[in-house]
Structure formats: C-alpha cells, structure tokens
C-alpha cells in the first residue's frame, strides 16, 4: 500500500530487528532458568550462559520435591488460589449485583464509600492490627479474606451487570422470580464469560501474592510458594541482619543454583500454562477498565 522509499525500507529492517531482539530478551530469562534447572551446578558454573544443557539431569527437581517444604508450599498456593478466588467471586458478584440496581435506596452512599476507600486507606499497620485482633494471623484465611474484594473490579463488574438486557430481568420478575432468583438464574449465567475473566484476574493475584504471607504468616509450615521462593533464592544475601528471613529448616544446606532455578520454574510454570487464556482475557479486561473509568 505504502510506497517504499529506501529510508522507509531501512527503517522497517531496523524496526523488525529491534522488536525481535527486545522480544527475545524478554523471554530469555525464562529459557535460561529452565535450562539451568535441568543442568548440574558444575555446568552452570563452567558454562557461563547456555539455553540447552549438555547433560540433562532432573536432580534439582528430585531434590526439591523430596523436601517437606516445597510440596507443602505448592499445595498451600493451589489451595489459596482456588478458594481465595471463589471467595472473591462470591463477595464481588453479590455486592456488584445489588449495586447494579439504580433505584436501590442508599446505593450512592455505598458507592461513594467504596470509591473513597480507593483513595484513602488506613494503611499497613491498622489493617495488620485488625487482622491480628480477628485471630487471622498464621491462618490461611489471612491470605484470602483481607483482599476479598478489589474495589476496582467490583465497579467494573457492577457496570457490566448494569448493561445486561433489562427486559429479560423484568420478564423474570413478572413471572414471580425474586431478586435472588434473578441473580442466580439469569444474571450469573449470562455473565459467565465476564466472570471467568475476573476469576483469572483474582486467581493470578492470589498465585503471585507475596505481601499477605510476608505480613500475616510467620509460621513457615504455612508459607505459600512465593514466600518459600524468596527464602530459598534470596536468603544468602537477605539474611544479613534480619532474623525473620532465616532459612527454612528443611533446606539444610545453602541451595545450589540449579535448585534455586528449579524452585523458580515450579513457581512460574502454572502461570505459563494458563498464559494463553490470560493474554486473551486480560487484554480485554484492561480495555474494559480503561473505557469504563
């Protein structure tokens, strides 16, 4: 379509090359870590940089899965992700549905209170003290309940519910359906694709969550994977002067590089497996958020 001048062609070549390099640099760390996790520590030290190990060995994985700590943390992360996401969906959809009804008495007050909580928050310490006085410290609840609703997601879901076809809802009510019935039998089934998107949003948040565990979980037998990963990879440098960062006792010796890389791979892999779905849904979610803002 466009007439190509020499300068234009030269630009195109440079552009394609730059983008290819940028994209490769972005994913190379993952490839390197996967390769390193399948190599021996000696190979990692002697071969500086490689993307395919000379001798593939599963020793690092065999070792980390033979410890108590890693399988346990993996299961905790799976548990928190699954149940945490269900809790998120329950809290978010019930509240969003009620607030999606424009004639609800008190709706504006509640919406304004929610928006105010997005601008101003009590902060880390008062929230910590509330969670402590609820007896949630060192329980898995502390990783699921305090983030049960993201105000931002709540408002997007509310807007989505508002745009569902109203005649359908009116008809159901004339047929004697209660508001609860409308919610369960009409609104939720109609919103399945949108709710799947939000389940992914919340699920990724739980899997990647480090903050809640750092603040609320001292007991290393209840650490999620992200917390364990931080301990295994960074403890040698981070333990300087900070006793709370002591190593998990089941890793008796400082972990070798291949073991560190294997733990990184295990923590990343579930995310990489759902990535194709994520990419599709998340991009849509970003744009919905941007338009609705």
């Amino acid at each position, binding site marked *: 379509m466009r007439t190509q001048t020499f300068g234009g062609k030269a*630009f195109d070549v440079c552009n394609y090359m730059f983008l290819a390099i940028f994209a490769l640099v972005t994913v190379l760390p993952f490839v390197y870590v996967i390769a390193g996790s399948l190599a021996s520590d000696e190979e*990692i030290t002697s071969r500086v940089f490689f993307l395919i190990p000379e001798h593939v060995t599963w020793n690092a994985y065999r070792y980390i899965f033979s410890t108590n700590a890693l399988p346990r943390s993996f299961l905790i992360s799976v548990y928190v992700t699954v149940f945490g996401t269900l809790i998120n969906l329950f809290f978010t959809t019930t509240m969003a*549905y009620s607030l999606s009804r424009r004639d609800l008495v008190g709706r504006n007050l509640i919406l304004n209170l929610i928006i105010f909580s*997005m601008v101003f928050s009590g902060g880390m310490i008062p929230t910590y003290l509330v969670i402590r006085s609820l007896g949630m410290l060192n329980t898995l609840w502390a990783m699921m309940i305090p983030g049960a*609703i993201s105000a931002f997601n709540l408002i997007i879901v509310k807007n989505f519910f508002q745009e569902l076809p109203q005649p359908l809802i009116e008809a159901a009510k004339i047929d004697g359906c*209660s508001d609860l019935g409308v919610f369960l039998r009409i609104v939720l089934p109609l919103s399945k694709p949108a709710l799947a998107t939000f389940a992914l949003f919340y699920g990724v948040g739980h899997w990647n969550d480090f903050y809640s565990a750092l603040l609320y979980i001292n007991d290393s037998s209840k650490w999620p994977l992200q917390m364990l990963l931080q301990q295994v990879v*960074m403890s040698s440098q981070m333990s300087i002067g900070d006793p709370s960062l002591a190593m998990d006792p089941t890793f008796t010796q400082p972990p070798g590089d291949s073991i560190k890389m294997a733990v990184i791979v295990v923590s*990343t892999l579930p995310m990489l497996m759902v990535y194709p779905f994520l990419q599709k849904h998340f991009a849509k979610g970003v744009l919905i958020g941007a338009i609705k803002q």
Partner: protein
Amino acid sequence: MSIPVTDSTMKAHAERQVKATSAWQRIRRDKWLYILLIPGSLYFLVFKYIPMWGVLIAFQNFEPWQGFFHSPWIGFTNFRLFFENPDFFRLLRNTLLLSLYNIVFFFPAPIVLALLLNEVRKAWFKRTVQTMVYLPHFVSMVIVAALTYVFLTTDTGFINQLLQHWFGRQVDFLTNPAWFRPIIVLQTIWKETGWGTILFLAALAGVDVELYEAAIVDGANRWQQLWHITLPAIRSTIVILLILRMGSVLDNGFEQVYLMTNALNRDVADVFDTYVYFVGITQGSFSYSTAVGLFKAVVGAFLIWTSNYVAKKFGQSGIF
C-alpha cells in the same frame, strides 16, 4: 361512576403512590438485594473502614496489651518525632527519586514500543512479539527479584561471570547502593513495558486509515505521518497517564522495593512503604509507623485527587 375524577385528584393520587413506594416500601421490596449486600458491606467495614478509624493510634502511644481504648493519647508527638528524624528526608528523597527515575526512564518505554509495533505490517510478527512481551506482566514480583538475584549475584551469576571473563572484574550489583535505582527501573521496564503498550495500541487502532492515505497522496513520508497523524492520536492518552502517574509519586510498589532491599543498600532503598513495614511490623513501633503511614496516605490522597481533577480538566473522565 358518579364521582367525577379530575386531573388534579388523579395527580395527587399518583403522587401519594410514589411516596408510598419510596424509602421503606422500596427497602422492603428489595430485601434480597440488601441481604446480598451484607457480605460485601461487612468486608468494606471490617477491612477498609475500621483500619481508617484505626489510624487514630498514630495520635496514641499504642501498646497492644492495653488495647486501643486504654492506650494514652499523645497528640502529634509521633508526627513531630518523624519530621525531626533525619529518616524523613531520606525517605522523601528515596521515594521521589525512585518515582522520578521511573517516570523518566520507564514511562516513555511503552509509548515507543507501541509506536514501533504500530509500524509492523506483518500481522503474525506483531502477534508473536506481543505474546512474548506481555508475558513478564503475569509473573510475581518475587520471581522478578529471584531472577535478578540469580543473574546478578557475584561469582555465580552469569552476568558477573561474563564481566569477569571480558574485563577481569565483577560488579556488586545487588549490594552497591549506586545500582539500586537502576536495577529497580530495569526490572520495571522488563516486566511492564509490553503490557503498557495495550492502551496505546488500542488508541492507535482507532486511527482512520484514510488519514494515512491522504497524507501519502500529499507526499508525506513515514516520519511526517508519525509526527502529524500517529502521535496526535495518542497524545491525550499520554497526557492523562502522565498526570495520573504524578498522582501516585509516593507509591513505589512495596513488594519490589522490599525484595531488593538488603542491609547494605538500606540507605537508598528505604521508601515510605517499606519503612512502615520495618519499623511497624519488624520492630513493633505501631503508633510511630502508623503516623508515617498516615502522613503518606493523606498526601497521597491529596495528590490522587488533584491529578484526577487536572485529568478531568483535560476532558478525560479520570479514575472516578
């Protein structure tokens, strides 16, 4: 049928009906909606509004065994201690410098990448690049920090091995304070540049192709097309994002800074959020750290409100 029904009596009757169905009747009619509202309202009350009220311990000498109601009130002492402490200027400097680094070096990156992607005509190439550069957005900050440690650590990290090989010396990236800010910014660039392009690519997709065709007919080269058509199409998006970014200059991302902090770089690494953690949670000075957090929250709320106000002046709808 003998009583004549006038317009006015009908109106009065209708009004009474409206009044009757207002307030209490509507609340009774919507009882299921209120029942469904309970879990969410309790959540906001307990985890958002009680902590907001809890900031009052900033004006107390809060002792956990005495509880909120029996701890002595000490007015603004904690705030005075904080403002007189040399930590205050150190935190302010670190926080603002880190934000400044991010705005100068990271903020333009997604714009440039989006413009370059927009010039790509081969759809498969564009899609492949997008799939690759969006990926790091989905990994956790812990993984980003872990990768940084594994790559940059002295002796075994491959970057230091390369430096050793080529120049015969190594760099203490992780512990040298001079490297702290550059590493944080590089991490952000690696993690978020690709993802940041989405908004710009969406804006660019909305540009009318006829504009480019007309420009070509008029003899405009690619550079002129970029300058006069493409850039104006995303200018408002850029301005709004920049204004909103200004509203959050006090937020440095707790997890990222915490994960890259160690005993040797604390002097440049400490920002408001991590300071509150170290002083409050690790050392147990609840009242003093709450005062620090409250100061940050109040200034932060003011900045967000101002930036939103300015963004609205520019004709956009802002965040709320």
